[in-house]
């Protein structure tokens, strides 16, 4: 385990306030590497400061759930709750992580291997 970063400012708001006391997202579709994309045609007015920050981050381009949590310095569980709300409201859409049913693992492994070898 790596100790928490020293001096990281988590702000004044506790995680359970950010999520209105919820600890589970409205949908159970988020993996750490689920890719998230923002829709730029949705109004940001009325969003909480955390959701607005999340949208501002995601409007720059696609990111994984883990990256969003890391950039916003929010726990993954809290990030998933916010993401669920924003998918429900049409602000975000997701691309599933490894769609194993559609893309066989053998093919992914070969692509990973090719990509790694190309870096040597």
């Amino acid at each position, binding site marked *: *385990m*790596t*100790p*928490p*970063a020293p001096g990281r400012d988590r702000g004044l708001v506790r*995680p*359970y306030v950010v*999520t209105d*006391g*919820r*600890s589970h997202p409205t949908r159970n579709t988020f*993996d*750490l*590497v*689920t*890719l998230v994309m923002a829709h730029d045609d949705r109004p940001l007015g009325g969003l909480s400061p955390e959701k607005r920050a999340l949208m501002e*981050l995601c409007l*720059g*381009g*696609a*990111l*994984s759930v*883990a*990256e969003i*949590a*890391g*950039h916003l*310095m929010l*726990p*993954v*569980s809290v990030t998933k709750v916010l993401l669920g709300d924003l998918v429900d409201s049409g602000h975000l859409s997701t*691309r599933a*992580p*490894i*769609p*194993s049913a559609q*893309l066989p*693992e*053998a093919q*992914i*492994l*070969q*692509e*990973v*291997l*090719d*990509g*790694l*070898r*190309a*870096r*040597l």
Partner: protein
Amino acid sequence: MDSALASDHGAYGAHPDGGVYLRRTVRTAAKILIVGHFAVGKTTFVGSLSEIRPLRTEETMTQAGALVDDLAGIEGKTTTTVAMDFGRLTLSDSLVLYLFGAPGQQRFTRLWQDMTQGALGALVLADTRRLEQSFDVMGLLEEHGLPYAVAVNHFDGAPSHPEEEIREALDLLPETPLVTCDARDRISSTRALISLVEYLQTRTAAQEHV
């Protein structure tokens, strides 16, 4: 990479090699865990390979171990924070690989479920001075059914042992790959990952022929 995008969002701190955001053409995200005991070099390994400045996520746990189920009213309980560092490698126009440096503590069960779900496999980093400390994490991987290879991270001044001795000390199966690496070195770390993925391939091929 979309370096213009990254500089537009400089507040999020891009690694010199690439932008913060994924290429628009990326369709698939794969995941490999880098695991091992405290101070074995997980974060260094992830940092050597990542195209982005490695990121950290944290999760709050009750001291008893379960992730806080009801986040309301936790002030009275002792909580602890567990962190994992991770990085990213874009391997092709359509494929991105995430490396998660995972803590080995068994009590963080939900975090482990999150991390292992959908992972291709794991690389166990080991230190010859503390081989016995790798057992916990290897047991956890076996519990979660996640295949792994072992990479002995080279530390200056650490004794070097014949491979057979290390295999025996770690009680490795004959097919489990054992390699050495220097987590500070990108090429060496890449080679260790390649050994893991080659092993995963042979397993997948064997399963298809059953």
